[in-house]
């Protein structure tokens, strides 16, 4: 089963700036989810986007999905120090089982 590849592996920005993380994959998907993991904690679900959707918003988060390019991006606007965490994309593949396969994550540091 395929796994998403996040890019960049690490990102350091100043508070107030926007942060963009990307996730690329190889074969067709059913849906893609983004999760956040604060240091030493469990993962928290952020957004789910289905393969027939192109964009979703939740507060300061915007997720896009381009199935022709097999990629998704997570944008965090007006970042805060509390956004410091690792961000993972997770996907379920078309024709595969329903299991979620996680990428290796992007470690975001927001400096105050």
């Amino acid at each position: 089963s395929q796994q998403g590849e996040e890019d960049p592996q690490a990102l350091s920005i100043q508070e107030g700036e926007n942060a963009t993380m990307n996730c690329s994959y190889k074969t067709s998907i059913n849906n893609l989810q983004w999760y956040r993991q604060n240091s030493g904690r469990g993962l928290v679900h952020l957004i789910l986007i289905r393969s027939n959707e192109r964009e979703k918003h939740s507060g300061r988060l915007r997720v896009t999905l381009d199935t022709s390019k097999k990629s998704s991006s997570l944008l965090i606007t007006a970042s805060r120090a509390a956004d410091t965490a690792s961000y993972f994309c997770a996907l379920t593949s078309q024709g595969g089982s329903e299991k979620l396969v996680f990428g290796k994550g992007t470690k975001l540091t927001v400096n105050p």
Partner: protein
Amino acid sequence: DTAVSQTPKYLVTQMGNDKSIKCEQNLGHDTMYWYKQDSKKFLKIMFSYNNKELIINETVPNRFSPKSPDKAHLNLHINSLELGDSAVYFCASSLHSTGPYEQYFGPGTRLTVT
């Protein structure tokens, strides 16, 4: 109230020992999962149960045996622990197994094998 809880939070043990990790969810979900996160933060599914039935069983050594006494509980027993078993183990749950559905994660159990 904690949605998905795991015990213990930390587990330090010696090679060769047998240990268990417990997980409980109070969300009324049908499906529960065990994941292993290695030192590089790579998260990999190990098992999934739906209404007490095993539905996902990845390539995991048979020293690992999950047990679901009811749909709110999923325990993980590990026999003959090895150094390579050191990792953080996460339990998660979702409303159903076929979705898509978001997953709710527990706080993790950090297992250290010495």
